[in-house]
């Protein structure tokens, strides 16, 4: 199995603070990976480096064989924790925007999802609620047929009912052979869809296993294990 993401001794320091400390990971194609850890454990820093939004202090990282840059941006679909959509465009204009810049964008898929969520493509972003904006953002990100999806807290801001729909959307819409990395601390909600988990603590990987391995070895759920590992 090929690795979509490889990194070696990846580190990011802010002054003397180590946001990411010698992270070495190999993530294969076709997996759903949970990047789990408490607040400030380095999840967002890691994802930002993957997206070329931060330059690592040390170490190397390759996505699909490339250093983060134009080539990786073509194959990585990223959902940041921020609302990054401007307010003045209509939803349909945003779809055209994505279609213009990403060759892997599937317009039909986007409209299909909008219909299912009963979001009118002719409304301006300005008039949408925060939760609806997040849904639009997720639809745009999942409508790309990317090789790697990086989802930073995709369910953080929405209600539990919408969470199920979003997770469903993620599972149903990611392309075959693609890998999805989901960063979150809401573990029990996403546990059932994960293949692999990575535990991050103080910028270091303290555990990286498949969900089956964990269940076989410890007999615990991921949520229970997380509470045990990160006990305060």
């Amino acid at each position: 199995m090929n690795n979509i993401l490889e990194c070696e001794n990846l580190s990011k320091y802010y002054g003397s603070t180590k946001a990411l400390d010698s992270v070495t990971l190999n993530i294969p194609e076709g997996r759903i990976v949970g990047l789990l850890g408490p607040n400030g454990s380095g999840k967002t820093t890691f994802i930002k480096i993957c997206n070329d939004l931060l330059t690592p202090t040390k170490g190397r990282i390759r996505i699909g064989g490339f250093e983060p840059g134009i080539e990786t941006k073509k194959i990585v679909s990223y959902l940041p924790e921020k609302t990054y959509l401007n307010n003045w465009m209509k939803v349909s204009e945003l779809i055209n925007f994505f279609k213009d810049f990403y060759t892997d964008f599937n317009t039909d898929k986007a409209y299909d999802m909008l219909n299912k969520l009963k979001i009118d493509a002719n409304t301006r972003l300005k008039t949408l609620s925060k939760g609806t904006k997040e849904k639009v953002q997720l639809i745009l990100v999942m409508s790309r047929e990317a090789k790697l999806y990086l989802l930073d807290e995709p369910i953080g801001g929405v209600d539990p009912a919408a969470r199920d729909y979003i997770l469903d959307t993620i599972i149903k819409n990611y392309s075959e052979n693609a890998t999805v990395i989901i960063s979150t601390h809401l573990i029990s909600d996403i546990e059932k869809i994960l293949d692999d988990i990575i535990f991050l603590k103080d910028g270091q990987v303290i555990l990286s296993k498949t969900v089956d391995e964990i269940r076989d070895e410890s007999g615990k759920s991921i949520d229970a294990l997380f509470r045990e590992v990160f006990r305060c």
Partner: protein
Amino acid sequence: MLAKLMKYEVKATARWFLPLYVSVLLFALINKFTWYGPFMENKFSFTDSSINNPALSGNSFVPVIKGIMSSLFMFIYVMLFVGLFVATLIVVIQRYYKSLLGDEGYLMFTLPVNAWQHILNKLVISALWCLLSSIVGICSILILIPREALQELPYAFARVKEFIGVSGIVIFVLGAVTSLVLGILKIYSAISLGHLFNKYKLLLSFVMYLAIDAITQVVWMLITVFSVNISLNKIDFASMSNLHQVKYVFAALTVLNVVFSAGHFLLTSYLVKRRLNLE
């Protein structure tokens, strides 16, 4: 990709500028018919006719209202005219600060586009709007001034051309355009530098701008002193006509503008590519 970026940048900014341009030109036109001032001799002014009309002269109310309206329209026009340039400056700053370094940066910087293309995009579109704002501003004045004065314009242009020559016009235009480009890039550099700090980013951007401006002035002065010394040996500056001296200085300014602009462009590209940390 650069063309696509520009397409969206124009879309994003046109919704500010077009209504503003229309209002400035519209109010210039309104004032052409309503304003009567010491320097305006306007035959179409309804205020004039009402004053001269014996039927209305007994009634002082109508001219007063018309006078107030005429002053109000002129006030709005002047406000819009000033607003045109203030708004242009604000949009130049805001489009860089908000759409690249704000939350929208998450979208823009994960597009498969180089950092320098983003900066070039903002620069070109901003410069074009600055030029267009100036043209609209000039046009609104041309609308306002009396027709007799307008007829003198071709003659005035001919005199300017005769005096400074085609080469002079080219040199002045190049000097102006490169000054504009440098002005915008200085703002970008300052904002990018200010963004390196964790707090008071906008305030520090402003401080950075003052610093950059001061450094630019010092360098410009040193180069002037230095180059005048050199050129005095090679070129006989003193024996040139005044016009030639001015052209010479403008040409030097253009070259320096290009050099400084390149420096700011490289600095901004580096900061955005390597040192960027979006909140």
